[in-house]
């Protein structure tokens, strides 16, 4: 799905990656880990083409519009006068575009997504009245309705309590089982082990790919079980 070929990545004069080769397979559930500042967000942005590479190239097996990205700093204007339902509706853009009407199928999908993340009771509420956690779940729902084949999530669980985290990760797991490729930034090793199939660990300007069952944060690199280092 995504192939890194001799990729070097710099940000603010710091070298984040040096000459990396990596293949991200379709249908995998990748947990992206690494210390703060190691370059997790930058890697995601590079995959999307929003960050320029210092060398090498990234071969993308997905098209524009077939991915869904949840950035670390959400850009949704919470002061915008819309309801939760309308905000989730924006995720269906590719279905209705500029002029078509929405039909019952679309509304069904929206309802499902809202139920899934647990904010169906807030459907008609204005987005400026949501708490941080509720907002994050809204963004999740918006991502779900897009029905993309590649999901990229950058620190999506920061504002959310334990129970909600479980709900959301369960949803991602279900999506994974449907064949969706997922790359998600995680800090909690336990969550990595429970949900992800593989771990991408960034350290020393390299990405270490290993089987998630054996994830041990920094030690991932040193284990004989690791699959690959670029």
């Amino acid at each position, binding site marked *: 799905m995504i192939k890194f070929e001799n990729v070097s990545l710099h940000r603010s004069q710091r070298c984040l990656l040096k000459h990396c080769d990596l293949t991200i397979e379709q249908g995998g559930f990748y947990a992206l880990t690494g210390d703060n500042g190691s370059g997790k967000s930058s890697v995601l942005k590079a995959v999307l083409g929003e960050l320029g590479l210092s060398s090498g190239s990234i071969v993308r097996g997905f098209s524009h519009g077939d991915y869904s990205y949840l950035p670390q700093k959400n850009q949704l204007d919470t002061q*915008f*006068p819309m309801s939760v339902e309308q905000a989730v509706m*924006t995720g269906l853009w590719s279905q209705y575009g500029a002029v078509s009407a929405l039909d019952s199928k679309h509304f069904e999908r929206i309802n499902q997504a809202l139920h899934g993340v647990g904010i169906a009771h807030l459907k008609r509420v*204005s987005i400026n009245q949501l708490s941080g956690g509720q907002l994050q779940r809204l963004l999740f729902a918006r991502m779900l309705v897009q029905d993309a084949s590649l999901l990229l999530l950058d620190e999506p669980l920061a504002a959310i309590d334990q129970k909600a985290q479980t709900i959301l990760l369960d949803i991602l797991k279900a999506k994974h089982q449907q064949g969706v490729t997922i790359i998600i930034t995680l800090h909690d090793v336990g969550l990595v082990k429970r949900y992800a199939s593989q771990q991408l660990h960034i350290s020393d300007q390299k990405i270490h790919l290993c089987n998630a069952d054996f994830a041990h944060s920094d030690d991932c690199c040193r284990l004989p079980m690791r699959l690959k280092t670029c």
Partner: protein
Amino acid sequence: MIDLIISPFVEFEFMQRALFGCLLLSINGSLIGVFLLLKRMSLSGDAIAHAILPGAATGYFFAGLNVLAMTVGGLIAGVLVAFLSGITARKTNTNEDSTLASYYLCSLALGVLIISMKGGSVDLLHVLFGSILALDNDTLYLLYFNSALCLLGFCCCYRFLVMDCSDSVFFKGLSRYSGYSHYLFLFLLVFNLVAGFHALGTLMAVGVTVLPAAIAKYWSNRIESMLLIAFVVAVMGALLGLLSSYYYRLPSSSAIVLWLGVFFLLSVLLGSQGGVLRSLKSKAELNEVLS
């Protein structure tokens, strides 16, 4: 009572034209004003009023006091400044208000320079700017055209604008054309302002665009109802302003804008969405419940 409201319009053609002109302006004003508010660009109206000067001055330089030449020149200058500030803001990741401020000031200075080269002290913009009480046929046609253009533009790109305003980063991931709606909006903004200045003067053109949207924000948290409220408020302000100008000898543009100002203050106090007195009231109720 009804007679008091209707009779000035029955007796005088200029009053009918003024009301009609206000109605046309309210259509565009509410559409553009609400999105200006959402994009946090409400002050740009005034900036653009100054930015059009070098265009008008160039028109004056080559064609003398020819209103068409100056209006077209002003439109070109305004669009250039708006586009430049939009592009600069987006590409260099700065705020649009600072880029607009910078470009309009340069533009204004350039305009003053061009005028001084031709020499003389014609009040250029005064010739260019009209009055609500003096809407001749040509000016009304301009306002018609302006409204039609605006409505067409918004019909085409309403959803684009909503997406772009609410979450532009998200929208960029969904559509390759996400950025264009902003430029179309800027074009409509400048056209609306230039037509508005020419027909009605700066105070009216900017006032009827910015104030109704600000008022609507205090009464609604859905964009659809904001648009409707803005339109209704604009028309009411125009009606009351014209009647005040008629019965109390107030200058018409100022009267209209001042009525809108009164509505604004009332909304700040009593608005259901964030009005001061409402929040005080709910705080008081909460205290009662707790104690």
